[in-house]
């Protein structure tokens, strides 16, 4: 990709950050810190890697995206609006009664979502099923699934990991948004995840590390994984919770507490 294109993607990332801050402030809630850590991952995926057709979201040959860390819904909605699934204006309805943009994604309410999610760990298991169906039907689609690092404390993640390797699902790509924080503290303090790379490798996955906020690095990694055969792929993305807004970065005070007017203004200044 040319430097111009990279700049374009970085600008989209900025826009996404703005939308995430605005919609969660408007809603008076929502996990904006966890959303901000996923921005470059989503931009790289949706604007370069994933094969989807916005006008035909049911296309059986489309690539799938499963937001296993469903609490990053604001980021997903922002990228979906940016991709053209619905008007950017609708982002304002986040978390409102009757809105298609539920606090955690609900598939049947919003065309373009491939699954509902929010209950941690279930997304990756569902993604295994979708990938398995792709293999059974000899379809070429790939299934991308985004997990949190705290989410890896759920037992079902490892049940799913074991089965994906067993079924040799090289059409399944799990991206772990490793921001090192969960709701009550650092992951290492709450429940140590140890060596995540070694864990995923031990479960039979081909594992790659990437800087989750570096778009060229992400794009290069997406290119590299294409050579993997007969194994599912895990990409461990080092990220910063709240990335892009220095005063909230890694500051757990802001995990879900909405920004007040002054903080929002300050935050928007940071990301523009």
């Amino acid at each position, binding site marked *: 990709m040319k430097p111009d294109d990279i700049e374009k993607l970085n600008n989209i990332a900025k826009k996404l950050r703005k939308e995430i801050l605005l919609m969660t402030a408007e809603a008076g809630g929502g996990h904006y810190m966890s959303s901000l850590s996923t921005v470059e991952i989503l931009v790289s995926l949706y604007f370069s890697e994933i094969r989807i057709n916005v006008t035909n979201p049911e296309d*059986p040959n489309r690539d799938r995206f499963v937001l296993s860390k469903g609490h990053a819904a604001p980021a997903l909605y922002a990228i979906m609006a940016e991709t053209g699934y619905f008007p950017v204006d609708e982002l304002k309805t986040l978390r409102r009664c009757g809105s298609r943009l539920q606090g955690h994604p609900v598939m049947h309410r919003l065309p373009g979502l491939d699954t*509902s999610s929010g209950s941690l760990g279930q997304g990756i298991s569902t993604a295994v099923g979708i990938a398995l*169906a792709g293999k059974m039907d000899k379809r070429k689609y790939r299934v991308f699934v985004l997990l949190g690092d705290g989410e890896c404390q759920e037992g079902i993640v490892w049940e799913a990991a074991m089965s994906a390797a067993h079924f040799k699902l090289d059409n399944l790509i799990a991206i772990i948004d490793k921001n090192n924080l969960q709701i009550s503290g650092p992951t290492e303090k709450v429940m140590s995840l140890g060596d995540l790379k070694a864990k995923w490798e031990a479960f039979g996955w081909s594992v790659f590390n990437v800087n989750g906020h570096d778009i060229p690095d992400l794009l290069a990694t997406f290119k590299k994984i294409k050579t993997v055969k007969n194994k599912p792929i895990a990409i461990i993305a080092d990220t910063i919770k709240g990335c892009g807004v220095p005063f909230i970065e890694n500051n757990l005070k802001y995990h879900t507490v909405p920004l007040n007017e002054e903080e929002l203004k300050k935050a928007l200044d940071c990301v523009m």
Partner: protein
Amino acid sequence: MYNFSKCSHTRDAYGNALVALGEKEPRLVVLDSDLSGSTKTDKFAKKFPERFIDIGIAEQNLIDIAAGLSLSGKIPFVSTFAIFGCGRAWEQIRNTLALDNLTVNLVMTHAGLSLGGDGATHQSLEDIAIMRVIPNMQVIVPADSVETEEVIRYAAENKGPKYIRLSRQSTLDVFRRGEYQFDPSQYPVIEEGSDVTIFTNGCMIRESLKACYALKKEGISIKVINLHTIKPISKKIVIDEAKKSGGIVTVEEHNVIGGLGSAVAEILSQYRPVPMRIIGVNDRFGGSGKVEELYRELDLTPEHIIKAVHEVMKLR
């Protein structure tokens, strides 16, 4: 009179039905959790190995993988023991299957007390309650092998998540092959009568009929109805029967909290209050023993049913 020596295993009927349907329906896939020899999905596995998926001992993953297959156009049948399939994976069933009304057929076996010797950890006396409370979920308890085959065909042809409860025990052969068609909104009358109506299903049909025949000798006429589809329940049939007989007894191999009796009481208490008794396991765990022994220990015998009928008649 039904012939009490004519019994068969609904699990076998399930396995055979899967094979028959698998021939015609290429989208049908079967998932199991290391228990295919017991659930009888092994029949399908043998015939269609490319469409049989053993997930190993991991029920949560079992359910969500089935969800993923359903999202990709497959018609999954999922089997394991009821306690683990419904219990361990309840939240996967709620949040991934039911929330989006996905077509996944949960055919859980060895329900109720039927795993006698294995004891409390393997018996399932709460499954109907916890499945029934989930929006979109359909809950069906087939009476016998013929009805099981029909229910499995219905499940393969109709959308949405379904819980189908099978026993390890053999059940009394009630219906004749070729003569019975399953309709979730119609409850077959197993025995005609007018004094009290018994709503029951599954293995408890046999116990209810025994009570019915004993009461006949006392001059009491009991109607026995196979209430196979607990959800969506036919409000109309329940109310009509209450109007006709004026007394209801429900009989189930399940905790009295949240099961068939509760479902019937929810209707009667609001729309047609009549004297009623709920026969089931009185908020207890099971234990090891022969199934007949456990029925005695946990108040599920014809004698208990007869006593309930007498009480209802007195209150009328």
